[in-house]
């Protein structure tokens, strides 16, 4: 494969993470370039969430380097990490909306608290409304997270993750625990965000269907919906699949290579292309 000329957004170099003597990530090396989508598959406990948290600097690796936008974050202090984190959107597994704040306050939170996001106060409300309209939750401004359904909470959390228009967005199991229709809606939103804002996307999931949609569909802004995009989801974008097993990267490649794999662990996640 020819070396990619696009800018490196996220790079892991021989990263090792362990908790209380248990290795969670082992010698992990990969690089995500600008505009790329990466779908990370793996069984529960294979280190997918820890990978995303390490990319955000929430978890510090025992060894190895994590370069985000070309800057090694492993040696940065918490206060210095805030600048890097302001360029990364993160959707947490259980949404992690602040339950004492309304949806409006939740979505406004990064705009008001990220030091590097200089958003004038009068622009906060319009941007929050815009972000909530993007996820089709315009009427929920005054509601609290507990008043919303699981799928709506997930959408509100997506709005919070993308309200600052970050160039890199990390999604941790966005469809976990949702019914298939809601799960499809969530992935459609991810594709919409990726294709409108041209973000680099890391998607952690246990569902191959999610990765299949990400890889093969693109958002048509004229029609306002998804359409098949052929291999690579459109010009400039490509989707790479990664499979983690007990903290090790056991597969990295495109969808064709993934489906051609005969490894019994990998084939567990793969179903035939829709």
């Amino acid at each position, binding site marked *: 494969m020819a070396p990619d000329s696009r800018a490196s957004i996220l790079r892991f170099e021989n990263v090792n993470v362990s908790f209380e003597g248990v290795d969670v990530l082992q010698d992990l090396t990969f690089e995500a370039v600008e505009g790329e989508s990466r779908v990370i598959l793996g069984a529960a406990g294979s280190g997918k969430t820890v990978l995303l948290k390490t990319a955000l600097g929430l978890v510090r690796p025992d060894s190895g380097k994590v370069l985000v936008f070309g800057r090694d974050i492993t040696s940065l202090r918490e206060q210095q990490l805030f600048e890097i984190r302001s360029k990364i959107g*993160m959707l947490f597994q259980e949404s992690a*909306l602040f339950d004492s704040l309304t949806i409006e306050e939740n979505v406004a*939170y*990064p705009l008001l608290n*990220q030091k590097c996001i200089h958003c004038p106060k009068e622009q906060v409300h319009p941007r929050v409304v815009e972000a909530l309209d993007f996820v089709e939750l315009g009427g929920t401004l005054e509601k609290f997270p507990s008043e919303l359904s699981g799928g709506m909470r997930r959408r509100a959390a997506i709005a919070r993750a993308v309200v600052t228009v970050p160039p890199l967005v990390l999604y941790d199991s966005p469809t976990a625990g949702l019914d298939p229709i809601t799960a499809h809606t969530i992935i459609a939103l991810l594709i919409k965000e990726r294709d409108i804002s041209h973000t680099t996307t890391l998607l952690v999931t246990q569902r191959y269907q999610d990765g299949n949609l990400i890889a093969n569909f693109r958002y048509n802004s004229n029609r306002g919906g998804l359409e098949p995009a052929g291999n690579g989801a459109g010009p400039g974008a490509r989707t790479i699949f990664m499979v983690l097993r007990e903290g090790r990267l056991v597969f990295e490649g495109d969808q064709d290579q993934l489906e051609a794999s005969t490894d019994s662990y990998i084939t567990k996640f793969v179903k035939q292309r829709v």
Partner: protein
Amino acid sequence: MVASEFGDPPILLDILKEPVLAVQEFFLLMGRAFRNFVRSPHYPDDIALQMDTIGVGSLQIIAITGFFSGAVMALQMYHALAIYGQVSKTGTLVSLTLVRELGPVLTALMVAGRNASGIASELGSMKVTEQIDAMRALGTDPVQKLVTPRLIATAFMLPLLVIIADFVGMFGGWVISHFVLTLPSKQYWSTVWRALDWSDVTQGLVKPLVFAVVISLIGCFYGLRTTGGTQGVGRATTQAVVMATVLVFILDLLITKIFVGQASS
């Protein structure tokens, strides 16, 4: 290593490692919480909210505790002093025990039970639902946003609550002295007033200040290190209350020793 050289299994070191690490983490949290006093951003709204929860919210229970501890002290002291024919000193003893010991300790125990548990469960729930991680991801230091406001609010409100508890306790003592023991009101209040000197008042205010730091930080500490879902939240809450209560007693003895040592030297 050392244990192995002497032929002992290194199990003892492993057992000690965890509590020593916990103490180290507690002091690191304390350091970060105090450092945030001079580091922006500050969260005055959160401080005000916590003052309301910890201070105003505890007022009722503090008043009840103070009243009955003052009343029971009057009753007990009257009968003890009657042996020596010194019942006129009832107010003195009620005043001294309340201001030096019962006011600060009982108020701290009430606040520990009410607020150390509340803080630990709130922060613990936030931890297990990844809200603490989300806060860090969204550009906020959880210590600055959650711990420092609770520390400031408790350190400000607990001494005030103690002052209220002391006065309500003295009133409780008067109710018993006047209506049950039929001691003259003027005598009671003058002995209450004359019993106290500045070192008593200082002691009565230094104690709640120290207790406040411990109660709020223990609550935050156990809350922020919660693991293991809702069961973990319950465990963190219990540990916070038990540890805060035990530390209140230990620190009470230490502070009393310092003040008594100063007075006798």
